[in-house]
């Protein structure tokens, strides 16, 4: 999704958010990621005013007070954390681990195929279809991508073919490279 994203061209407008909308987003985030509760004040301080950057292809980025991108979403989809945020607080998103061979493909933006999640080096945490997941890798400490399950983990095991996780944001893509917005 962010493969061809470029900060300069892709962001069409930046808006200051009304405080009521901010509250709405906060509660939505907490609903989606209950484990975030302990640290949400670090990520999005209550007193801060956040902004939303509207981008091409119906992408919205949530910027915190310092202009860092913290969450993004596509159309009315769920808010997903950016990788930089996820590296700081890796615990609040469900993790799925792919095997070593899949890393290079994911790093060039490919969706994760089922066999990459079921082979010996991989490891899945049970989750429903449509869950936001962090894609980890065999032998690596940090997440390398963020995606959405297109099948439930049970189905992935059963079917073992085709796309299992749709990759939205991966290391070194346009969003990763984007600098904090002033």
């Amino acid at each position, binding site marked *: 999704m962010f493969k061809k994203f470029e900060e300069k061209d892709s962001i069409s407008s930046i808006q200051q958010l009304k405080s009521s909308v901010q509250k709405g987003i906060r509660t939505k985030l907490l609903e989606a990621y209950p484990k975030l509760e302990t640290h949400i004040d670090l990520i999005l301080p209550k007193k801060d005013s956040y902004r939303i950057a509207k981008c091409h292809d119906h992408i919205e980025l949530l910027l915190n007070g310092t202009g860092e991108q913290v969450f993004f979403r596509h159309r009315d989809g769920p808010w997903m954390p950016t990788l930089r945020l996820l*590296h700081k607080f890796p615990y609040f998103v469900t993790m799925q681990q792919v095997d070593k061979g*899949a890393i290079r493909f994911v790093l060039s933006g490919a969706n994760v195929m089922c066999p990459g999640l079921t*082979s010996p080096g991989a490891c899945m945490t049970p989750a429903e279809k449509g869950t936001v997941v962090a894609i980890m890798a065999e032998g690596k400490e940090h997440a390398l991508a963020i995606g959405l399950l297109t099948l439930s983990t049970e189905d992935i095991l059963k079917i073992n073919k085709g796309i299992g996780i749709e990759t939205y944001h991966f290391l070194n893509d346009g969003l990763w490279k984007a600098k904090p917005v002033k």
Partner: protein
Amino acid sequence: MHAVNEPDEIKKKVEECHGAVEVTYPIEVKYCGNCSMPIEYCEYYAEYDKCKEWLAKNYPEDYEKLMLREVEEAAGASAGGMDSDRKRQKRGGKGMLRAKKDNEDDNELKCVRLSCTTRGKNKRVTLVAGLAAFKIDLRAAAKFFGTKFACGSSVSGDKEIVIQGDVKDDLLEVIPDKWPEVPRDAIDDCGESKKRGQS
């Protein structure tokens, strides 16, 4: 709608990742200065050698660890044969990232080009192009020129500043004074620009 894992499971996973050490958040991740990814992913970058160089310079300890691991792996591969390879699935295709050819910025000559055009019948404007190559903030520069020459000044298009009035000769003096990193030789007087000034 979002399925929640058992807390134990998450904990286990986190422990796996961080060696069961008490973790304080936010976690500080070391990012490579060359490829900007966490250093453990450098090996998947097209310019891995440059990453290594960077690592050796900035985090010598991690570099040594990496070297050790590589040596071990090489030894393991030769001793254990293809054992580790056989377990894994093979994948086809060209997954490796290619080095991108974005030398555009480097190739672009580092010079500031000044030119003049007319706007309307009797008004002159000065165009300054190429300041961006020196990593100068164009907006700040435009503002500076505006106050300096007491005239309108704006950033037009991508990398060009338009100053109202003919101030080319002054610019030759002002630019090196304001930004010492721009040598006087790098400022090019292009004379009359054929391009009509943007209206």
